[in-house]
């Protein structure tokens, strides 16, 4: 008599077993290994590390395998793992000046000290499907240049010498940590940048794009985009000095925007900043544009009602793990709420019907 509305434990177990089978796919096809994903789907790995806020290519590759290539699901796995890790300490700020650059381009100068280095980029490739890859992906070795040993100065530092760009004072305050403290608004720039780095690539890209199309008018130049490895140093209290604990690959983007000046500031350029793990340049550039857009108020430039100017809108909606969780939770049973709504609607219909019947009688 009683309809089986209850799923329960067995349904969950069976669903998970089926999922595992689907993940593996056709067993006559060789299984993907984690190193294969790490090496050959590196840009997916980089995205998962960036939005997962954890630099570990092997774990990111594992997450991609486990999530069947659903990158948001993979980011979620990484975040959930990260949150259980004890916080041993924090590193010194990484010095991107000293980055060993694999790629470094500036759109604002034809040439700059340190040179323009294209590096491994899709730019200028013709987007034609390479059917040879259907069979095999063996490639001839690429030419190798001598590595540059001296530091590569930031392009914006040249503008800074002339006073042409708004300067960022170095601060010694410890930045707040979005993963350890609740987001509080208005957020300072350090907090905003953390949120943007963790934010969904698609969302940040679209926000950035909207600023280019007139929603929060600002025209950005890529002052510099650099990708490479930097050393991570940490103070070891027992030693009393800092040591290098490893290195991470980063993408850093600084954009420059023209600023007509205000009552207190002369005309100059302003900055937007993006920093992400691995080679993730679409994200880093997008982030720099959105960062600059969110700085409008503090820079004293015009603030519009555009979404990308709205700190609350951007920061509260950029996290894909929050967004996807809440969006997908509407799949969960809601029959208690729905029941109460149904009763209310029925009651209102009865009231309206009796009111119109009464009217007709009169």
């Amino acid at each position, binding site marked *: 008599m009683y309809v089986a509305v209850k799923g329960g434990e067995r349904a969950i177990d069976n669903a998970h077993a089926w999922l595992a089978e689907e993940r593996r796919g056709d067993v006559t096809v060789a299984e993907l290994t984690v190193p294969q994903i790490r090496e050959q789907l590196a840009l997916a790995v980089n995205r998962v590390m960036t939005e997962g806020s954890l630099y570990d290519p092997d774990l990111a590759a594992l997450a991609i395998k486990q999530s069947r290539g659903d990158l948001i699901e993979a980011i979620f796995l990484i975040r959930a793992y990260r949150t*259980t890790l004890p916080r041993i300490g924090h590193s010194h700020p990484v010095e991107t000046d000293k980055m060993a650059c694999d790629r470094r381009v500036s759109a604002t100068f034809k040439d700059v000290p340190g040179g323009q280095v294209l590096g491994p980029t899709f730019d200028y490739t013709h987007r034609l499907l390479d059917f040879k890859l259907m069979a095999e992906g063996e490639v001839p070795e690429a030419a190798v240049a001598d590595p540059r040993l001296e530091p590569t100065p930031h392009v914006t530092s040249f503008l800074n010498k002339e006073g042409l760009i708004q300067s960022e004072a170095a601060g010694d305050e410890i930045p707040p940590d979005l993963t350890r403290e609740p987001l509080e608004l*208005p957020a300072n720039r350090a907090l905003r940048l953390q949120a943007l780095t963790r934010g969904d690539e698609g969302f940040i890209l679209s926000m950035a794009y909207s600023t280019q199309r007139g929603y929060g008018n600002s025209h950005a130049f890529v002052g510099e985009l650099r990708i490479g490895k930097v050393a991570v140093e940490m103070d070891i209290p027992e030693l009393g000095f800092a040591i290098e604990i490893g290195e991470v690959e980063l993408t850093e983007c600084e954009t420059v925007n023209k600023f007509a000046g205000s009552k207190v500031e002369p005309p100059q350029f302003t900055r937007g900043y993006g920093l992400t793990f691995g080679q993730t340049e679409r994200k880093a550039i997008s982030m720099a544009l959105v960062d600059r857009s969110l700085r409008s108020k503090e820079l004293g430039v015009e603030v519009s009602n555009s979404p990308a100017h709205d700190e609350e809108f951007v920061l509260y909606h950029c996290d894909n793990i929050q967004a996807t969780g809440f969006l997908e939770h509407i799949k969960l049973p*809601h029959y*208690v709420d729905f*029941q109460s709504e149904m009763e209310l609607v029925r009651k209102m219909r009865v009231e309206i019907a009796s009111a119109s019947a009464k009217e007709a009688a009169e």
Partner: protein
Amino acid sequence: MSDYNFAYLDEQTKRMIRRAILKGIAVPGYQVPFASREMPMPYGWGTGGVQVSAACLMPEDVLKVIDQGADDTTNAVSIRKFFEKTAEVAVTEKTREATVIQTRHRIPEELLTEGQILVYQVPIPEPLRFLEPRETETRKMHALEEYGLMHVKLYEDIAKHGHIATSYAYPVKVEGRYVMDPSPIPKFDNPKMEMAAIQLFGAGREQRIYAVPPYTKVVSLDFEDHPFDPSKANHPCDLCGAEHTYLDEVIIDDDGGRMFVCSDTDYCAERQATGHRGRLSPSQDLEKAAE
């Protein structure tokens, strides 16, 4: 499960959550910001409640988890299993036996007692959110006790529909100060919130914890000429005959036939076990024959 700490969260995270819970107790109905962690289940699926439960659970606790009033709905099963595994606590479906009850969308029918904690999963903790989307604004409104907007909304309902058109997540005022979202429980459950147990509310994605201590005044917002009405479907339970419980409406055949059953599965089962019968109960003769 030795890979993870007792009750999953690390101790520093638990301390942070515990401090937030205590602030919530000290200022009933005020939403305390907390640095919600990513949990191994998605945001919106009870991460706030799970974090609050994880911060509360002792090894001696007996845990009950319900969703929509039922112990055997999939998400309730999943959360119960999570704590069985990570905290190794005893679990129960009996409301009376539980020391900690995590719930989504219902308050159990049975009166809760001292020594029990009811943990609510909350999707949108801000009762003013759908009237004012900005956190900076709603925070100011709470600070100034400026709740005019909410009263205007409810009054507009009355003007338009003849009564207040909110049937769940019906806003309450706590101890005469903060307007609070009781989570999406049906308004039928609102009067139960003045209870002997401790009520804790966790909103993971929105990073808020709030609380209602025992015996705290919880008043559903209304107007003198339109008093609060905690009504429910005008039927008895078809399985146990209860006339005073919140009911699920279940469609039972292709012709739209339906039955009404208690949404609180434990309460309903216990009533049936003690001989209560409803319209569609299995025949009593058959049962006697079986005895």
